[in-house]
């Protein structure tokens, strides 16, 4: 009995001295299981050839990465990704900033307008994308009905290889600009008022105030918003998959969609994993660069 008590108190002393290790241990174990292990497994798969359902993964070294460089669809995927993300991020940032500036004044019904304005951002992506898909249908969609009823020619929207990416950019901008606006608006509201007053007293006009005061002050916030948005945007999947599945042909197949197809339509787990690693590297590099820019910005 005494021996047992002694043992127990020894254990409790042991645990007490190492609280920092024992208390987070369950959470760390779970994280390890659901994050570290899958990533490690994914990395392992990149060096294998494995068709799901046919035998075991076979080690092939760097062959997947070699194949990747000669694969036209990879380059197409990078091109579509740069086009889609470049256009949508630029537009979202510009529009988001403009609208935030507009909302950053007192006007009647300000709060109501803002509440309505964030609806696209709050709605479920797949549900919204399904509705867009119907609206964009060139035969029965409401967008062509609206165009033709004001005398404009109908568009093929996502059914045309040329129009598909701009159309997807339009949907993305519609959905995500409110998010940028919210972040920038919060930033604007926290800015010190003295530089603005000083500028006005010195006779600066609105454009000068925006260019020489607001913009430099808001830059870190803008970059933070861009980073947040780019994380999702560079691996945009649900909206594109729901509306076009990468079509027509491969005209809207981003690298991310292509890796999904390779993994889950063609069941090539090894090559698909290698593609995913490339997508991950692109997102990582982009964010490291952005982070640099943010750190180099003058402190507010």
């Amino acid at each position, binding site marked *: 009995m005494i021996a047992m008590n002694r043992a127990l108190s020894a254990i409790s002393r042991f645990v007490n001295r190492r609280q920092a290790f024992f208390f987070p241990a369950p959470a760390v174990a779970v994280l390890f299981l659901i994050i570290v292990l899958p990533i490690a497994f994914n990395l392992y798969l990149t060096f294998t050839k494995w*068709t799901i359902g*046919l035998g075991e993964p076979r080690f092939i070294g760097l062959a997947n990465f070699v194949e990747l460089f000669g694969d036209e669809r990879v380059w197409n995927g990078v091109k579509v990704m740069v086009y889609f993300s470049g256009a949508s991020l630029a537009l979202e940032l510009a529009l988001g900033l403009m609208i935030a500036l507009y909302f950053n004044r007192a006007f009647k019904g300000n709060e109501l307008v803002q509440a309505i304005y964030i609806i696209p951002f709050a709605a479920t992506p797949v549900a919204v994308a399904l509705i867009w898909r119907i609206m964009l249908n060139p*035969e*029965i969609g409401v967008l062509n009905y609206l165009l033709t009823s004001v005398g404009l020619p109908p568009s*093929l*929207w*996502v*059914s045309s290889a040329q129009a598909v990416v701009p159309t997807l950019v339009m949907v993305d901008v519609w959905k995500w600009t409110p998010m940028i606006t919210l972040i920038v608006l919060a930033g604007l509201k926290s800015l010190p008022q003295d530089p603005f007053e000083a500028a006005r007293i010195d006779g600066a006009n609105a454009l000068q105030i925006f260019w020489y005061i607001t913009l430099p002050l808001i830059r870190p916030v803008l970059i933070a918003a861009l980073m947040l948005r780019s994380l999702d945007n560079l691996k945009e999947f649900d909206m594109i998959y729901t509306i*076009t599945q990468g079509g027509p042909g491969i005209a809207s197949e981003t690298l991310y969609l292509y890796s999904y197809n390779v993994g889950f339509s*063609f069941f090539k787990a090894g090559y698909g994993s290698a593609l995913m690693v490339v997508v991950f590297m692109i997102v990582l590099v982009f964010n490291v660069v952005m982070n640099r820019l943010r750190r180099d910005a003058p402190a507010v």
Partner: protein
Amino acid sequence: MRSVRVVVALTVLLCVGLMSATAFAAVDWKQSQGTEIRFLMNKHPFTTYIEPKVAEFEKLTGIKVVIEAFPEDQYRNKRTIELNAGGKVDGYMIMPGQDDLHYWKAGWLQPLDGYIADPKLTDPSWDPKDFFASFAKASSVEGKQIGIVINAETSLLAYRKDLFAKFKQKVPTTMKELEQVAKFFHGKEVDGKKMVGITLRGKGAAATSQWVDFLYTFGGSWTNSKGQSNFASAEDIAAFKFYGDLLRKYGPQGGTMLHWAESTSSFMEGKAAMIYDANVFKALYENPKESKVSGKIGYAVIPAGPKGKRLPHVSNWSLSISKTSPPERQKAAWLFVQWATNKENCLGALLAGVPSGRASSWKSKEYKAGDKQPDWTAATMKSFDIGQGQWNPPVINVPEIRDITGQVIVAAIEGKDVTEAAKKAAELMDKKMER
């Protein structure tokens, strides 16, 4: 004297008894009594039909049947994963045209020929000759029967009978006529709506299922005699080009994004004079709640190609037995498959709307009495007779090669250089084919 007569009478009785035993009760349905078997099924109308009847089979045989059914997409994954993990699966539904090579190579398909030939296991009334030869072939790999058809499909040309009569157009019997009729109707105004000539699937890989009928009918094929891609051949290119031109010139706008749902809805809206798609979509076209053209539709077999050939594909769901299941349970599983595909059940399923792979079901009085579209039945029968069971590329990695094919179809619909696209795809296909 009396005792002699008794002996004779007894002998005769014994002989008759023995004869009848061999002639009428060759299969001992109770031979696997007490065995439990597990089948994985797709939530398909056939499953809905057969599930409530399983109790009859259990009473007849004393075999316990566990059926687990899942919606199709989920089902395919579940089946692959369970077989891969080596779980207790004795039988399952399979679409041979889609998965047979993959499953065969993986060692998951038990050849059934031995069971069919064994008089102790297969009742003569099961009559294997009653199944359409095209489907028996479609459910075979390397000459081995690996499944018994439970749902038989093909593709047909459906056309607006009312408009064809009104504008005095003949049902096209050749590809040339098909193009002419499509051209004739394209842009015609009917009831204030502008018609399109024909609607087809155009969405890349999804379009290959119907495009393949044009491929075969134009004399083309997936691979040549050396087993290499045949896409760069004149016949294959002609098929790509004809299909793409037809849809671009005389089809709905945005042809490259048409899946079957978009294509059929355009026909059911009354916007297209013709459609070429799966014959089972008759159920959609003729449903007055969903279709504006029900009762106005005629059906025909695919028009003949430049050399007079017509070769539509047939596709099917089959019941297969898992090779990994132990022999005792395989035997019980075969008794179940045999019972589920007997004449009575195939007819019952057909009357419940599941197209049967047995000729006798279609010829039955019961079916004919309720048949509202005899021309659909006639065209379907014809297509079953002439149909080709290989509708996917003859490879293991079917989805990947279909995807490559789909890129050429899209290029053809977009009016791009088909020859170049086909050549590029042929090279890629040669590189990626897995057998």
